[in-house]
């Protein structure tokens, strides 16, 4: 019985996060707008479209990382400022479940606009269908790790009143391996062979990121609420 109660509570928590996120629809709007404008800036900065075709994956990933990091700040700051982060812990939710629920909500928030934005990327960067499929698989496999790391980075900076750029400085090195593997997957994409295209590495990175981020998140949340 107790087991089911815990399960139900966790889903309630996820539901709460998604509901809050959908209420603040402006976050999704600003995320999408930032993504499109930042991608366009890259396209405009290069005269020859053939270069854009080569670097489309890098551009998409860099823009995605920055947009996620900018959004993740809103996710935690509001909860910290109005005291609901402390309240959730007081109600008995574990730090891990809070972090996972926020990551799931953020994932939903990123994936919804992505469904609309990916065709735009397809048009802007003039990529082939294979490349587009590779990009979509990439996004689905790597975004969970990305959101977890972003949530962690905003946890680091939630108590900082000034100098929020620290958030980027601290956490950007941890994006480097992800950037390396996500951008290298697309270049050799032929057919749908998962093994050959290092997609499994992205899954592996997720399984490393998940426990590390949860452990670190738990420690930081305890420190925040002291």
């Amino acid at each position, binding site marked *: 019985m107790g087991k089911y109660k815990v399960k139900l509570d966790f889903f309630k928590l996820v539901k709460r996060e998604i509901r809050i996120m959908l209420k603040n629809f402006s976050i999704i709007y600003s995320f999408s707008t930032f993504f499109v404008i930042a991608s366009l800036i890259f396209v405009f900065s290069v005269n020859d479209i053939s270069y854009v075709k080569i670097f489309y994956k890098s551009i998409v990933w860099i823009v995605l990382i920055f947009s996620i990091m900018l959004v993740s700040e809103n996710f935690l700051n509001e909860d910290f400022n109005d005291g609901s982060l402390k309240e959730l812990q007081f109600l008995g939710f574990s730090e891990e479940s809070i972090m996972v629920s926020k990551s799931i909500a953020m994932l939903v928030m990123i994936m919804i606009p992505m469904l609309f934005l990916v065709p735009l990327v397809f048009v802007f960067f003039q990529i082939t269908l294979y490349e587009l499929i590779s990009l979509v698989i990439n996004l689905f496999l790597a975004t969970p790790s990305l959101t977890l790391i972003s949530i962690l980075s905003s946890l*680091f900076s939630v*108590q*900082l009143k000034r*100098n929020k750029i*620290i958030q980027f*400085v*601290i*956490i*950007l*090195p*941890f994006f*480097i*391996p992800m950037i*390396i593997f996500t951008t290298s997957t697309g270049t050799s994409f032929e057919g749908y062979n998962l093994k050959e295209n290092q997609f499994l590495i992205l899954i592996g990175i997720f399984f*490393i990121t998940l426990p*590390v981020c949860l452990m*670190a998140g738990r*420690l*930081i949340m305890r*420190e925040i609420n002291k």
Partner: protein
Amino acid sequence: MIFNLANPLRFQRLIEKIEPITFNIAITLLLVGLFFCFFGSPPDYLQGETVRIMYIHVPCAWFSLMIYSIIALCSIFSIVFKHTLADLISRSCAPIGACFTLATLLSGSIWGKPTWGTWWVWDARLTSELVLLVIYLGLIIINNAYEDKSKADRYSSILAIIGIINLPIIKWSVDWWSTLHQPASISKFSSPSIDPSMLLPLFIMTFSFFFFFISILLVRVRGEIIQRKIEVIRFNRMV
């Protein structure tokens, strides 16, 4: 014995006794080591005189990893036992580690130009070492970002623990990926191994760097202890 020294004040008294000794040993070994580096060891048959950069580069690279391991151990100790001295040591180690990492990258780059024909390659070993430098910088920034020092210590400990992931990547990057950087040759006893005439100055320089690191660390820890004392006095006056 160890638990007695874990008290910052007792440790400060010990530092005052040890620090001049370690510094003198470091300087003596450095002078002997430099003599052997320039006059006591032959130039490499392939690399020529540029091989002498190795006597700086290799110890720096070892210490960049060793110092991070110390930070990580102190961080674990700090989180588990909440001990101030562990925080002080990890806080003091971060800038020293960053300097060693920077020295590794710079000396490697200077060696790379005549040997590889380029200052920098996006090689797995070089990239992971660069990531280590960025992590060190992150730790330094965190240490100075928060007004509450205990909070800063806790956050930097967490970041240091996350950063441990990078250490095995640096160590085994040359085995896991096909890199331009050569695999481990110092710890390798089978042929081709390093010549004893080159091994001697390398070890002297390593010991010299070790004592130099210890003396700098002790000075920094003493500085941190004094700074915290001043903060406590200021706080008491305000109250």
